[in-house]
């Protein structure tokens, strides 16, 4: 079982049903594997099919008329027609999903009751519910807000509550579908730190969908989608060397990577992997010392 990937996608194609029942292709022959414990960022421009891919993983797409190929999560084939309700619930429990707009995913009028919503649906006994809610709120650092009303929180806080609501279901994998896109810089940092903590400390597999390049720089692995096809797949360092390909699919390099690449073309001795501002600063300092 060691070598079996947690998520296995083979020849996945998907089209939306357009006018006159014509298919509008979104994903084309996509194949990829994601191992347990990985921190994967899926990059892509608008309309690259990245959100559809995430929704397919969680079986929340409306129409499967034009779905082809297979998705296997933890050995269970997701799009199989004879999937029982129980298997669907188990899939959604194991692969939690956080969306873009924090307002539109909170259900209850009190923070702790919202966090309890998922486990309540799973029928977790009441004594354990309490423990799970407290634990989840502590993980995202929102314990002090347990009795607050969600609409009084900031965007970043709301999104952390939404994350706690997923953690309380004890998932093995979490998908973040542009979860930082609507937040201010402070909220974004809060949420990104929480995501990293979940991956590093709780060992949760993270699939983060975004179009922010600097978020991609912090991941273990970056997958670039364009027009429903896989374009690049590798560590951030590997992916960012293909700056022309990235530009061609409408993405820019993170600023620090772009700066360092520019310096290299000017024959400045900047070395090493440069994906974060800190790495960039250090490399420039080293280059300056050597000059």
């Amino acid at each position, binding site marked *: 079982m060691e070598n079996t990937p947690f998520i296995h996608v083979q020849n996945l194609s998907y089209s939306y049903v357009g006018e006159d029942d014509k298919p509008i292709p979104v994903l084309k022959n996509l194949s990829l594997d994601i191992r347990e414990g990985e921190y994967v960022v899926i990059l892509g421009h608008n309309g690259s099919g990245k959100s559809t891919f995430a929704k397919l993983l969680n079986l929340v797409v409306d129409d499967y008329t034009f779905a082809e190929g297979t998705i296997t999560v933890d050995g269970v084939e997701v799009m199989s027609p004879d999937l029982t309700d129980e298997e669907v619930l188990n899939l959604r429990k194991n692969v939690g999903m956080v969306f873009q707009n924090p*307002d*539109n*995913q909170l259900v*209850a009028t009190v923070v702790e009751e919202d966090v309890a919503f*998922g486990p309540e*649906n799973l029928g977790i006994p009441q004594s354990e*519910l*309490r423990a799970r809610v407290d634990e989840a709120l502590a993980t995202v650092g929102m314990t002090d807000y347990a009795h607050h009303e*969600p*609409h009084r929180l900031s965007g970043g806080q709301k999104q952390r509550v939404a994350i706690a609501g997923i953690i309380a279901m004890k998932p093995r994998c979490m998908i973040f579908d542009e979860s930082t896109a609507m937040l201010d810089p402070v909220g974004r940092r809060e949420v990104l730190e929480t995501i990293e903590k979940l991956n590093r400390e709780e060992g949760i597999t993270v699939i983060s969908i975004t179009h922010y390049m600097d978020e991609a720089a912090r991941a273990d692995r970056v997958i670039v989608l364009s027009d429903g096809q896989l374009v690049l797949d590798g560590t951030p360092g590997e992916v960012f060397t293909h700056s022309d390909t990235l530009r061609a699919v409408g993405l820019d390099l993170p600023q620090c990577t772009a700066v360092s690449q520019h310096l290299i073309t000017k024959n400045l001795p900047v070395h090493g992997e440069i994906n974060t501002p800190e790495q960039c600063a250090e490399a420039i300092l080293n280059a300056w010392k050597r000059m």
Partner: protein
Amino acid sequence: MKGFAFGQYYPARSVLHRMDPRAKVICAVAYIVASFLCKNTFSFLLLLVSAFALILISRIPMKVVLRSIKALIFIMAFTAVLNIFWIVDTSEGAAPLVDFWVIKIYAKGLYHAAFILVRILAMVIGTGLFLTYTTTPIALTDALESLLRPLAKIKVPVHAFAMMMTIALRFIPTIMEETEKIMSAQKARGADFTTGSLAKRAKALIPIIVPLFASAFRRADELATAMECRCYHGGEGRTKLRVLKYHGRDAFALIFVALFIGGIVAINIFGRKYGWLYTM
């Protein structure tokens, strides 16, 4: 908008606030029944005293309670006036107090008007204090779901209604905030909501209502997806974080309300027997 509070909930530390919401719903219904059972001056006096006793127990300032009564003053005055002029005492030896042209006012009419006033007053105070002032809307939703659960056996979607209530309560502030944003946006584009004829002002609301509806539907769609992702599949097999529990005080309150109804019935019976003041 941040300071927006739901309903009329008035936070205070009283036994009424701490009572189980289910017990409060039952008490409120029983109290309305009691106010309809009152038949004579003594039972109405008891009702009036009990209403004021409730205000004292709830520790809610009198002026807050009076505010809700103020809203009903027109209806109260209307029913009172109607009773004064309408009631004709046909019993023997009953002479009208005022007999002018077509207007005949009997003492019975005055008593009836007073009775009706006390009844409305007691109903407003009773339901207000048992329910809206001392119970949060969410606790009320829980209580109704729990009390109506037997109806689920005859296929009434009790859980679905409670979920709808919860979501409505959750989204009221969100949508109010959004309304404000849209209004500001339209004002910035030169919309005018405050001047002109009524028809013109109503028309000016269209550019607010259309985007508001569009966004509400989008929200509903996203929320439904998010709920599905969080394993929502109806009320079946669902557990709850907050479980309602009856305490001694709830039993005490229910017994007390039962005794209160018994007392009123007793007063009615004795009142009829001994011909106490103005039976209704």
